[in-house]
């Protein structure tokens, strides 16, 4: 018998509640939020979404009564859409620290943040780094608590474009149940990559602004602090919620953490280079 359940997700000081019912809905919630701790707090959600399923079709309801959006589709499609909406809601309501549109990984306990928009290929780069033994924090949303150079990731499944499938499928994953697909994307659990560990936080030791470009001449060059500040402001999701739009915090951050610009056409060009930049931070 189906029953309405509630799953609460807190991240970066904001909370989303998911009310769900039905077999497919349960599967979607379990798949998407497997690595994200459930919040103990109840009744404090900034946003509530409803996810219902019946007869193999999942339906997502967003918003309130007159403005409600109904979205009916396959499991993979609904999962991808819900994941995007949850990330947006968490980021836009966050007030405690800085939230960036970025991937984050950890290598031997040292953290790397890769800020970038969807088209720069940061999720695919993240997948490749996972295959190189990095630990996973997130492919989408990073939180830096107030005044700290510490990465807290939102460890969702990687959202990889269909066009990059040929790349990540070569990375030795075998467990096909860890991959769900939508019309133009694949959701891939970090567990799909052999040896990958998911960790919730890491110190921030390095910032890299990546861009994949098939025709690019390889470049991995340091940015000045002011250049890094400008770039970071472009990927700063919750600036409007912070005093002075978080500008003084950005300045403080780039004074503490080195930043680089990376342009690459093939992953082999990157091999060993990020680790070399992290080595000085290890001391």
């Amino acid at each position, binding site marked *: 018998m189906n029953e309405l359940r509630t799953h609460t997700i807190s991240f970066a000081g904001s909370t989303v509640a998911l009310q769900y019912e039905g077999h497919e809905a349960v599967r979607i919630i379990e798949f998407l939020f497997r690595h994200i701790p459930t919040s103990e707090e109840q009744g404090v959600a900034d946003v509530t979404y409803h996810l219902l399923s019946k007869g193999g079709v999942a339906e997502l309801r967003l918003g309130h009564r007159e403005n409600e959006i109904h979205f009916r589709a396959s499991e993979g499609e609904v999962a991808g859409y819900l994941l995007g909406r949850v990330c947006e809601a968490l980021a836009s309501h966050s007030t405690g620290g800085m939230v960036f549109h970025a991937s984050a990984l950890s290598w031997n306990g040292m953290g790397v943040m890769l800020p970038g928009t969807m088209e720069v290929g940061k999720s695919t780069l993240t997948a490749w780094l996972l295959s190189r033994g990095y630990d996973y924090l997130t492919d989408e949303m990073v939180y830096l608590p107030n005044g700290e150079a510490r990465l807290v990731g939102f460890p969702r499944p990687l959202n990889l474009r269909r066009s990059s499938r040929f790349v990540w499928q070569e990375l030795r994953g075998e467990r096909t149940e860890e991959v769900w697909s939508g019309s133009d994307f694949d959701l891939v659990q970090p567990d799909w990559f052999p040896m990958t560990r998911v960790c919730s936080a890491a110190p921030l030791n390095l910032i890299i602004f990546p861009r994949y470009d098939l025709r690019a001449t390889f470049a991995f060059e340091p940015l*000045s*602090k*002011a*250049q890094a*500040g*400008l770039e970071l*402001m*472009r990927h700063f999701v919750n*600036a*409007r919620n912070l005093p*002075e*739009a978080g*500008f*003084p915090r950005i*300045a403080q951050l*780039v*004074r503490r953490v080195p930043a680089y610009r990376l342009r690459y056409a093939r992953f082999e060009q990157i091999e060993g280079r990020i680790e070399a930049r992290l080595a000085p931070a290890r001391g």
Partner: protein
Amino acid sequence: MSPSDKPKQKPDYHLEEMDNELLLFHPQEKKVLYMNETTALVWQLCDGQRTIQEITALLVETFPDAAREIPGDLENILKQLQQERVIELA
């Protein structure tokens, strides 16, 4: 733009100086600007008191080896700052 114009920084910008470069932020317009060392120097000279001619003379005196390029470079930078609406000409 004439030599007697007095460029002046527009108010309300938050300023962070980092290794002689500048990062400017306008909270109302949500605008962020990066200035390299040269542009930052020019911007800092735009105090509303000095004319463009005086700024040129000051830069030529400070950087005599670049005396020939300075007038053209300064004009380009001031045009750029004007387009970005971070200075006004009085």
